[in-house]
């Protein structure tokens, strides 16, 4: 029986169908769109200042190179195998991401962007026996139109869709939990693969003989409620096919931090959008400092209400690489506003805006320019003081004015590909 803490939720088996669409080796796939001869060859993308590998294809993984590896440690492997390495070209990735998300809107009225390369689509309006075919079509259409290979996981809750996505690759790109109960598969999935179950709780579950996802779905509610936080109990319900997490409540991806909010009323003017984005950027900065992370890139989006067909529709999104990984709020705000300059269009009624911090790395490996060091340390102390005050007196008590911080010395990007889709001088040549 559902206990009181869950009782507020409508606990009926979900009647919805969700797809999680996830781009395969997204940054590398973006580079391959414009260099098709790299299909099937090992490709890697480097962080800012070309410090470490932040994206790689299975072909590169097979050579023993892993995520986060500094390329100089693998120099001979990389050279011997003629591995194509690129500096991160966030303008290109952001543009292709927007195209993938735009293409998804042909399939569903509800597309929820979860990260630069992942989105949930509501597929409830398709007949149950067709959803796998729809999944395959999504895959084919995105590959044909944008050139990016994707995997699609399908389930009656977002947690199940996310789990199904893990098995998409080995099932030809689409995997669905719909219409079949699959204890065998669930028994073979270790609990560590589930979203949002921390190491500490995994241990506790295992000590009680709960090893697989199947075991977890069979666990006793009262026992779960007594020894685990409500978020875990909700995840268990999601795995059982009861929808109880909204997008905002989903476990945070470790790779990015998203802050967004719908406006109370439609907003058209740039100034108000700018202050909303500044707010989201500074919340994101705060969250990174709490988790001791730094972002390599920042992406913003502004969107109109798609359900208001009578109003002109616009979805603007862009991504900008930061010259060095940072958690420093003034820098984040400055870049967010620069991004707004690029995508803002007058004459639309905007309903929602958000800031996504991407390619997070532990702040210990922050790479700094020498002459920036002192500045940054000072910045860190200011940020610490700000977070403390905001923690005591409430969020947003201390805020930054959004004026001038210029840091426009060039970063090291020796292997940068052309900005094929965002710069006239950089077009693909045929």
């Amino acid at each position: 029986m559902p206990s009181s803490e869950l009782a507020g939720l409508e606990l009926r088996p979900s009647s919805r169908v969700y797809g999680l669409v996830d781009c395969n080796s997204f940054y590398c796939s973006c580079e391959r769109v414009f260099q098709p001869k790299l299909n099937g060859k090992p490709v890697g993308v480097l962080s800012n200042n070309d410090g470490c590998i932040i994206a790689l294809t299975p072909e590169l993984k097979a050579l023993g190179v892993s995520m986060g590896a500094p390329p100089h440690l693998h120099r001979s492997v990389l050279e011997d195998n003629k591995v194509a390495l690129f500096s991160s070209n966030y303008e290109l990735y952001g543009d292709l991401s927007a195209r993938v998300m735009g293409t998804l809107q042909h399939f569903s009225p509800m597309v929820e962007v979860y990260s630069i390369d992942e989105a949930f689509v509501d597929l409830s309006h398709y007949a149950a026996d067709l959803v796998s075919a729809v999944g395959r079509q999504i895959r084919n259409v995105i590959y044909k139109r944008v050139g990016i290979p994707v995997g699609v996981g399908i389930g009656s809750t977002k947690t199940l869709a996310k789990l199904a996505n893990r098995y998409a690759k080995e099932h030809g790109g689409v995997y669905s939990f719909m219409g079949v109960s699959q204890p065998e598969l669930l028994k073979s999935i270790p609990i560590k693969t589930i979203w949002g179950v921390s190491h500490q709780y995994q241990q506790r579950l295992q000590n009680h003989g709960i090893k697989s996802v199947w075991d977890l779905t069979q666990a006793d509610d009262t026992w779960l409620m007594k020894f685990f936080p409500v978020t875990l109990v909700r995840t268990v319900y999601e795995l059982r096919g009861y929808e109880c997490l909204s997008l905002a409540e989903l476990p945070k991806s470790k790779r990015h931090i998203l802050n967004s909010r719908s406006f109370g009323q439609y907003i058209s003017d740039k100034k108000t959008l700018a202050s909303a984005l500044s707010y989201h950027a500074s919340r994101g900065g705060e969250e990174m400092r709490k988790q001791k992370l730094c972002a390599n890139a920042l992406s913003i989006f502004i969107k109109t209400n798609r359900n208001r067909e009578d109003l002109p529709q616009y979805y603007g999104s862009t991504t900008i690489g930061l010259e060095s990984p940072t958690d420093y709020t003034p820098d984040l705000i400055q870049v967010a506003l620069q991004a707004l300059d690029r995508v803002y269009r007058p004459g639309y009624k905007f309903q929602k805006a958000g800031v996504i911090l991407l390619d997070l790395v532990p702040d210990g490996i922050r790479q700094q320019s020498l002459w920036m060091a002192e500045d940054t340390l000072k910045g860190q102390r200011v940020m610490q003081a700000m977070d403390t005050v905001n923690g005591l007196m409430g969020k947003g008590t201390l805020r930054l004015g959004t004026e001038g911080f210029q840091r426009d010395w060039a970063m090291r990007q020796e292997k940068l590909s052309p900005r094929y889709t965002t710069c006239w001088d950089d077009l693909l040549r045929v």
Partner: protein
Amino acid sequence: MELMQPQFKRAQTPTLDFTTETGFQSPAHDYRVKSLSLDELLIRSPAATFFVRVDHSDIDGIEREDILVVNRAHALVDGRVAVMVIDGEFALRRLRRYGQTWLLQTDTITQQQKIDETMICWGIVDAVIRTCWS
């Protein structure tokens, strides 16, 4: 000659406030129309359309330095010009259908080539843009 008002997307289009101090609308109010946009004319599938610059062309009507509006949403279309990937390299070819087979042609040489699975049709050319300045 008909005078047309192009729309410059990036430029700040001043929004006119048609309400005068008397509270009456301007008599021009009813005649407001959306200005023309080249994007609207040339781009059929925004998410699938890419601009490409010509380096080398063996196709009539397409010259070096032209900008092509390439649409990836199309299936193969008989007679249209495609951006093909042949041996991993980009090339412009005219598509020709003979029964079940598709052939690739150029307009300068009579040689034809069958499409095989090693080739990719990257996109179909929807429009050619040529500026008169250089």
